[in-house]
């Protein structure tokens, strides 16, 4: 029976090619616009570490007090050196790391080559196991290396390719800011988007991954300055990078892994206790006002998804809605034009269900055709986002099998939904009336 309806539908669609083309075009464009926007939104709102994001937490300490809080009462979104180091020393989470962005220069061993500049982070040893960072060669450094301020680094595979031709470089040394550091590990392509461990400094997205990681205290000792944002509520009293470390300026990111609800509660209590201690010691003159958000909540609070992306998605869905309303109207016209045909079928004994199946099949075919057109247009759309969007974001939008399937599915289901009301009207056609009027 389905084959018969298919044949009927195709015959009917061929009879009014203009109207059919109109519906297919509307659905194709509507679906393609929404799917292209969706691909961008999906890329920027994705969970960068889905298996663990609910266990990763970002603590915020109220170092500045009431005058330094945001409009909704949040303390600064980074830490000053005093708090970051105190939290690392207390070591109350299962794994934790303070981090700051660095941008050192590397002098290649080959004297004919000019120095290059790389981006990276100074972190603690627990950074690597906490974030499940994948290694190609070697591993991260040890807690002892942290304490001893060892001259070690972890580099990414791209830098390894550049400096060592991709060979296993563990044990070799590189020259950072004119000091030698021993390579202990080489990362396997790792550039999570957004760069969730330090969104404050990276702004969320970056096509270039961090190339160098070095022990936090090693970097402090070597006076490798921070490269990201420095926010101050008062001018530092002392000068230089050391002055920054003694100031209340915030410039350090922090992340902790807490595996259970009780661990979270315990850590929250610890943070409040820490703030109370600071209050008693006279450093803070206000009650504790800390925050402890898990990664998804943290990314949300930092507005990582650009509002342009959200507005585009909204507008594109609005376009799809208009296309569907349009399709409802055109299908209604198309179906009701065949009232006499429906009358004859019904008079010959076709039940309402048969009319439903016939017309929904027709709507489904229009949807499928619109979907195929939508696929092509989505491919064009995703390929051309690079022309209009910032490069860091455009590079994330990808055409994959799931997006293709979703495009087809949305087209067919949406068109069939749009076909429901016209089909209902078609099934209500009174056979007697139609036969009489002929």
């Amino acid at each position, binding site marked *: 029976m389905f084959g018969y309806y298919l044949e009927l539908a195709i015959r009917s669609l061929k009879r009014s090619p203009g*109207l059919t083309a*109109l519906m297919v*075009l*509307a659905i194709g464009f*509507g679906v393609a*616009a929404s799917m292209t926007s969706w691909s961008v939104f999906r890329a920027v709102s994705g969970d960068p570490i889905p298996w663990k994001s609910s266990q990763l937490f970002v603590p915020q300490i109220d170092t*500045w007090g009431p*005058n330094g809080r945001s409009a909704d009462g949040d303390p600064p979104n980074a830490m000053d050196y005093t708090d970051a180091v105190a939290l690392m020393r207390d070591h109350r989470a299962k794994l934790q790391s303070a981090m700051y962005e660095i*941008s050192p*220069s590397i*002098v290649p061993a080959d004297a004919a080559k*000019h*120095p*290059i*500049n790389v981006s990276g982070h100074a972190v603690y040893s627990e950074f690597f196991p906490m974030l499940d960072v994948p290694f190609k060669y070697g591993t991260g450094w040890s807690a002892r290396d942290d304490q001893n301020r060892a001259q070690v680094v972890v580099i990414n595979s791209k830098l390894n390719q550049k400096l060592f031709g991709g060979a296993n470089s563990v044990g070799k040394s590189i020259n950072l*800011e*004119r000091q030698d550091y021993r390579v202990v590990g080489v990362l396997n392509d790792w550039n999570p988007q957004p760069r969730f461990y330090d969104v404050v400094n990276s702004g969320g997205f970056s096509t270039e991954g961090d190339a160098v990681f070095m022990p936090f205290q090693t970097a402090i000792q070597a006076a490798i*300055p921070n490269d990201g944002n420095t926010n*101050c*509520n*008062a*001018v*530092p009293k002392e*000068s*230089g*990078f*050391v*002055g*920054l470390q003694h100031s209340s300026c915030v410039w350090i990111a922090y992340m902790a892994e807490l595996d259970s609800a009780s661990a979270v509660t315990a850590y929250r209590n610890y943070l409040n206790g820490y703030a109370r201690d600071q209050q008693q010691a006279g450093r803070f003159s206000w009650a504790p006002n800390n925050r402890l958000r898990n990664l998804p909540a943290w990314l949300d609070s930092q507005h990582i998804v*650009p*509002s*342009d992306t*959200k*507005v*585009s998605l909204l*507008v*594109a869905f*609005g*376009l799809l*809605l*208009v*296309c569907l*309303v*349009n399709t*409802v*109207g*055109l299908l*209604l*016209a198309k179906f*009701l*034009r065949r009232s006499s045909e429906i009358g004859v079928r019904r008079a010959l004994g076709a039940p309402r269900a048969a009319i439903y199946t016939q017309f929904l099949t027709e709507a489904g075919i229009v949807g499928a055709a619109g979907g195929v057109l939508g696929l092509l247009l989505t491919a064009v759309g995703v390929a051309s986002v690079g*022309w*209009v*969007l*910032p*490069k860091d974001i455009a590079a994330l939008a990808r055409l994959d099998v799931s997006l293709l399937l979703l495009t087809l599915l949305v087209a067919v289901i949406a068109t069939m939904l749009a076909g429901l*009301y016209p089909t209902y*009207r078609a099934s209500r056609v009174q056979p007697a009336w139609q036969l009489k*009027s*002929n």
Partner: protein
Amino acid sequence: MKLHPILAALRKHKAGTVLIALQIALTLAIVCNAIFIIGQRVERVNRPTGLNESNLFLISQQWVGAPSADAPDGVEKLDALQREDLAALRNLPGVASVAPINSLPLLNSSWTGSVSLKPSATIGDKTGTRTAYYFSDEQVLSTLGLKLIAGRNFNAGDVQHQGFRDSPPRPIVIVTKALADKLFPQGSAVGKVIYSDGSSSPSTIIGVVARMQTPATGSWGNDFAWYSTLVPTRMDANFARYAVRTKPGQLDATMRAVTPLLYKVNPLRVLDDNSIRPFSEIRAKAYRADKGMAVLMGVICLILIAVTAAGIVGLTSFWVGQRHRQIGVRRALGARKIDILHYFQIENLLIAGAGAVIGVVLSIGLNLWLITRYEMDRMPVLYVLVGVVAMLILGQLAVFVPARRASNVPPVSATRAA
């Protein structure tokens, strides 16, 4: 023509009428807001920075293993490196002037603080006025092409130098007119004293420039986009930026000459693909997202309008086909072609008008919702009014072809079976 028969007929086609009206309403709501977004972005992209942007480029470079500013006389050594570069650049043929500078408008790398009329204000107590600092030397006005409208320019004797993270007193500054007007609404800011970043030592305003945008283009910088303060100080750090103005027509040649020159002065430095950029590139990068958004909204508007127009054509054609015989009857009873044409045109005007009324409510609602959720501005009513007129015209254009076909139905159709 009486409206009654049209309304009576529409009552028989409720579904189609509602669908067209709904489509027009949604299209109006989306198109108005989209065009408003486009208008805002275009306005943003076109606002002048206050700089003479042609023949201007920026060098950003970093020294390798430079002396630490924390070390004794580290700052002096860093300053010597910088002066060496400046001297070499200023001798380059094709160069008109060079100024060391910490940032440029639209560069999105800023040093912000607050200035206040009282000494020792605490930062963050919101009494100060937020500003972005540009640290440069006596050549900054000529290099950037800033227009001095009051007071005097910096001279070589005014120029200090300091470590990147230090905060020595700033005895003299030049501010933008916007900032001067904000601080001194009575006017004549030249010679007045302000205090920067909670300092207790005064800064005297020696000059006012017409306009100079701050480096930040993000929404966080909107409140103080024109409040710039120029300080005659060379910043000494392990990196430095130099703004270079070339003689007319020599931009490309001069930019090509910079890399070999700086390597010759001191090979231990990082200069990469991004180190030497014309200002046009900085501008393009800063506004890429805005341009993209405008293009995207434009494309969506075009598709929307096309789809809605096509929908009106489709449904009206159907009605014309359906009423073929009735049209024939009316023609046989003496209606002229023009009467039939007007019938469909007025019918469309009624439906589009009803849709537009709903659309106005939806547009304003959508705008208000976007304001609460996505930091959008309030849309002027003019956008909606123009949108309404545009929708009515769109409806009339779309209905014309089917309506004319209807008017060509011969009176003899009345006698034929449908």
